[in-house]
């Protein structure tokens, strides 16, 4: 379809599922319970309503995802978003990339870092960003290609054990999220208001 987006962008996109989302009025009690774990002040997204086809996993996934991306201490939020973006580029989840590249730019104010990730131009990054993007990219591949030297490079850039664990969790949880969002739907240009 002509509104499908295939190229990476940090601009806002929309997502169109391949499966019919659960209809709230027809949701089972288990589905309603799982949907309570999502923010109540926002319209429930089609993505969450598709995942509601399996309410048991949806109910557990949301707190884990939020804990990994927004938990206190450890790696800064921007660098968690950088790991998430690098993983999403490997897995070519164009929608995931748009959200998390956008958040990284909002937090870090460094669009040139995202441009380098999109172009695979790791060598142009500063040493800390390069070590983070390199490890994240390699851990996201299948089988994971990250090595002891990649972790030593993170340590050499001053990342603590907690920060490396947080980066690992961010990349790993996007190994998960990318395998839902990209196979179950497609990125599209947002509709005109």
């Amino acid at each position, binding site marked *: 379809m002509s509104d499908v987006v295939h190229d990476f962008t940090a601009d806002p996109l929309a997502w169109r599922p*391949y*499966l*019919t989302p659960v209809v709230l009025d027809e949701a089972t009690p*288990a589905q309603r319970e799982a949907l309570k774990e999502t923010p109540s002040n926002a319209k429930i997204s089609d993505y969450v309503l*598709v*995942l509601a*086809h*399996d309410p*048991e*996993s949806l*109910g*557990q*996934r949301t*707190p*884990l995802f939020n*804990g*990994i991306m927004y*938990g206190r*201490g*450890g790696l800064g939020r921007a660098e968690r978003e950088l790991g998430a973006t690098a993983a999403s580029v*490997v*897995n*070519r*989840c164009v929608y995931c990339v748009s959200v998390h590249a956008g958040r990284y730019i909002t937090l870090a104010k460094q669009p040139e870092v995202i441009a380098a990730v999109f172009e695979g131009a790791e060598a142009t990054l500063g040493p800390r960003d390069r070590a983070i993007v390199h490890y994240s990219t390699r*851990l*996201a591949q*299948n*089988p*994971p290609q*990250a*090595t*002891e030297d*990649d*972790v*030593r490079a993170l*340590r050499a850039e001053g990342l*603590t*054990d*907690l920060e*490396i*664990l*947080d980066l*690992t*969790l961010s*990349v*790993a*949880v996007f*190994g*998960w*999220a*990318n*395998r*839902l969002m*990209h*196979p*179950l739907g*497609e990125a599209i240009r947002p509709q005109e208001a």
Partner: protein
Amino acid sequence: MCEEGALGPDVIERLIGAAPGSPVAEAVAARANLMQASQANYAAVLTPKDPGGLPQPLRFALAARIARLGGDAELAAHYAAGGALPKADARLTAILRHVDLIATSPREATRADIAALTAAGVSPDDIVRLSQVIAFVSYQLRLIAGLRLMGATA
């Protein structure tokens, strides 16, 4: 059996091979809430109360396949011990094809791959259940890989 190979405290301690109080062990302790949440997701995806059209032995057999494709022989052995494939038919063939594609090359997935599952008789509920099995084990094996590397470089 289901606790082993998941992400319980004993398993994580063994993976990182680090003494209690070491920086790696302290980092894991600081994220104990996320390790517990990972365990809860393991239960929801691999041993759910309502397995729908994906019985637990099939989930474990698929998880073993995903772990093997992800290069983690130890995790694959854990899942294989609880796994069994049903009699081969068109539905199972479509499920296995989808597992292999999404575990190894999620970037190649298209609308046609979901249509193929539907055509083979996999319901929308089971397509999402299957997607969660693939996605969770992909998460788990990357977390384990990272923990191993952290332990080895401590």
